């Protein structure tokens, strides 16, 4: 690893001032950044340690929602009583990611910013990766692309976003609150991550001199009927091939609202509001589930090795929605 400068600012303002210098990178838990630095993929000149800044708490908002500080550890977020009680979908998504040790280190802000695990991005031994070296090409397109995206891809990049947490947050309609030199702004989580297009080197809408302050959740409608289904190559401690965040607001046996998003299939958490709308206004039937799946997977295209993901996602959506309906039902009779 290259030697680096290290700063530990005492305030967000000081952190933002330091970040204005080129080559700066914020470090919270470090689980992704230190790994990337060891591999020579990330080469910051200066680390700005934000792990001791304020922002490591969860607070109720006046509207009944929740504000999760960006510095909260993934584990503490998943275990927080208000999250377990009101946003169990988020707890389950967080708990299905990484390992207990990594969840104790990784922060909510860092989870949002984690980079793809595309093996061609992760290994500088491969010359072609537009995300790592813009303009160099994409080795994954003609390479081993079993884990890669089936939706929203571009000629330049077929990488997936690896987060579980973000899939639940997209379904739960979270927003990301950030601060930069111009002040604060909020970005809908569904818009926070980008599609690769011609500039896959940019993962998110966050500017280099902006810092994530919190993730804000609207009042919960999905405390009961929820499921996070993660399909992967081993039972635990692996990234998703396909994951589904599904939650239903059931009223008198009918779906009043639905939350649905996919992970492991695109450069960002994949949410299609029309697919959620297709579930609303009637009991959850096989026909409705199939319609939602068709809308969510509209335009899906395999790259060869990952063709199986289209059918896998279709089935995972159906199972997650049925699980969400049944889990809440079981809890209510218990």
């Amino acid at each position, binding site marked *: 690893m290259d030697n680096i400068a*290290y700063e530990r600012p005492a305030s967000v303002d000081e952190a933002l001032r330091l970040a204005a210098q080129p080559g700066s990178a914020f470090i919270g838990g*470090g689980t992704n950044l*230190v790994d990337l630095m060891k591999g020579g993929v990330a080469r910051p000149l200066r680390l700005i340690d934000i792990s001791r800044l304020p922002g490591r708490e969860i607070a109720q908002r006046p509207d009944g929602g929740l504000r999760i500080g960006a510095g909260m550890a993934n*584990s503490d977020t998943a275990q927080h009583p208000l999250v377990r*009680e009101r946003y169990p979908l988020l707890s389950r998504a967080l708990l299905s990611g990484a390992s*207990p040790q*990594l969840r104790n280190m990784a922060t909510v802000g860092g989870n949002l910013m984690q980079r793809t695990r595309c093996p061609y991005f992760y290994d500088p031994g491969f010359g072609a990766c537009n995300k790592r070296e813009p303009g160099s090409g994409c080795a994954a397109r003609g390479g081993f692309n079993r884990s890669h995206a089936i939706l929203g891809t571009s000629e330049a990049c077929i990488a997936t976003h690896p987060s579980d947490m973000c899939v639940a947050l997209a379904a739960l309609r979270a927003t990301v609150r950030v601060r930069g030199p111009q002040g604060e702004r909020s970005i809908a989580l569904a818009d926070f991550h980008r599609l690769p297009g011609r500039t896959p080197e940019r993962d998110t809408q966050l500017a280099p001199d902006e810092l994530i302050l919190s993730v804000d959740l609207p009042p919960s409608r999905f405390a009961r009927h929820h499921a996070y289904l993660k399909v992967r190559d081993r*039972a*635990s401690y692996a990234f998703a091939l396909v994951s589904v965040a599904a939650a239903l607001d059931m009223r008198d046996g009918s779906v009043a609202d639905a939350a649905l998003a996919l992970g492991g299939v695109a450069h960002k958490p994949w949410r299609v509001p029309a697919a959620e709308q297709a579930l609303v206004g009637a009991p959850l039937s096989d026909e409705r589930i199939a319609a939602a799946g068709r809308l969510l997977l509209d335009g899906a295209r395999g790259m060869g090795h990952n063709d199986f993901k289209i059918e896998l996602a279709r089935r995972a959506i159906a199972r997650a929605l049925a699980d969400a309906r049944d889990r809440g039902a079981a809890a209510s009779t218990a």
Partner: protein
Amino acid sequence: MSHDLPDRPAPTRRGFLQSAGAATGALTLGAAAPAVHPAPSPPGATAPQAPTAKTARPIALTVNGARHDLLVEPRVTLLDALREHAGLMGTKKGCDRGQCGACTVLVDGRRINSCLALAVMQDGRAITTIEGLGRPEALHPMQAAFIEHDAFQCGYCTPGQICSAVALVEEARAGQASAVTEDLRRPVALDEAEIRERMSGNLCRCGAYPHIVQAVRVVARIAPAA
């Protein structure tokens, strides 16, 4: 001839590593040592370089109850600081990329991968390594259970497994849920599926998993309630 040498204790691997660590561990400072940068000047340098944020920084770690004043470059991981600077070889370097769990230690009581933690970021924190859990004559119950249930073969992953398992019992006692917990609103019982999920961050290439699960089950069952 070797049999003519005076009597002395036979060298041990651990003793050799510790003395070698002492010989090269010049960056371990006493509490009163000046906070100067001891790295040699590059060849041809005519004047000492002005200290910058890139140079080694003094940090204080409490490791297994003892204070360690270390001088570490920002890129040094906690794992390397423990092994190379503090001379504690019990924590093992496996993959060094956060994928195997061999380097698991407790920081302020929480289990983490020390290979992905920068030492400068742990300044002031309390670290517990396998050396701090028990002594050969007074083993931690988890250490004793690993021996009793034959929960290892080569032993390389074992310090990380044991640190992880000790934290697991504490987490479960505090009511923490896992990905396989059926109902997030109810207390958790540590059955085999729960233990396997909660130990999934520690790989064992010898495949001692069934015995590891057994050892953890036994300790979790006898661990007193909070």
